[in-house]
């Protein structure tokens, strides 16, 4: 198996499109998005479905990518994280078909 990176961004839903554009522009080959249902931060809880505007929902973007793509994306990601509610983490993973990422 081959070494790649796993990027995980938990971000507010209204900013999802922006995060996607950042990743796509950095040449990331793929990512998948998951809906969160609740959370806690800054001493406050939120819960999906208690806000008709859904503007406080959070989502998680997972992308398996090459370290080079992370480096390309990192500046724009930092800018994005500075403006919007978001948490980013990066981990090492092994994959089967390295050319896909």
């Amino acid at each position: 198996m081959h070494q790649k990176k796993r990027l995980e961004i938990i971000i507010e839903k209204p900013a999802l499109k922006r995060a996607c554009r950042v990743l796509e522009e950095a040449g990331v080959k793929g990512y998948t998005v998951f809906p969160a249902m609740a959370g806690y931060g800054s001493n406050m809880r939120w819960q999906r479905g208690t806000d008709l505007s859904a503007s406080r929902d959070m989502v998680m973007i997972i992308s398996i990518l090459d370290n080079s793509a992370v480096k390309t994306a990192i500046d724009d990601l930092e800018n994005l994280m500075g403006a919007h509610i978001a948490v980013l983490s990066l981990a090492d993973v092994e994959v089967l078909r390295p050319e896909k990422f």
Partner: protein
Amino acid sequence: MSVDLVLSTILSPIVLFFVLGLGAALLRSQMTVPEAFAKGLAIYLMMAIGLKGGVEMSKTALTSDILLIALAALLLSFLGPFLAYMLLRTTSKMSRIDAAATAGHYGSISIVTFVAATQALELAGVITSGYMVAMAALMEVPAIMSALWLANRGLQKSGEVAGSEKGELFREVFLNASVVVLVGALAIGWITGERGMEKISPFFVIPFQGVLCLFLLDMGLNAGRGLRQGWRQLDLGALSFGVVMPLISAAITTLICWGMGLSVGDAALLITLAASASYIAVPAAMRLALPKAQPSIYLTLSLGVTFPFNLTLGIPLYIMLAQWIGG
């Protein structure tokens, strides 16, 4: 008579279901109306309102009177935020950006409050015009622009947020679900007229009030949870703003309606629109345009304070104001 009006409003099933939801949430019940179901009901309600308004509009010509009301509606939405902003900055400790975002909510409108007012007027036997739905649609958006101007004026233009795209805010604001469905249904009602509606009106007219009960149960749950989670973010100045601002808007709009000589029903609706605050379209736009503003502040105020106030005490009061200038 006025006590009657208050009582019949507060003891109507839709308000009682709202209170049920509010109470359950404040007592920390875990019950929820599934999000997807509630959002589906919201689309139904907006379609029904739009269609009804459109069919009514298809029966009457567009007069200069109507254009005048439309102008008034636009101005109310545009200028409302300025008043709200000044009030917030003087009476509460809110930051500039939070005050601007909140102000945008109060310039815009709440379509559910509008519907509840329509129901109360119907119950009281007061006639309203179909084109008032169009006024509601017109008032949704302008306030957002004023809020952005208030937040950004004087600041040197900061760099764009990474990944933002030209037109994204425009689409969020002008093509959000409530604008699309409301304006679309209005147009469809207007195009097909009474004849086209025949077949579909059973679905959009008969169950309407019942669906509203179900929806308001959910609104009560939302408002209660919003209050429970958010009231700590608000000082007394901010909290009282949630009641005072609607009253001021109502007073000003009463004067304008009096100046334009509006009918009792239409005046009551325009006052209600001005006094109501958005909690769907505007919050979503604010997260894109002013991400630094804190959602817990404006959502708690508009959904947790102003909406319950309008639904219970506000609407009968606005109707009385309209009767007073119309009588």
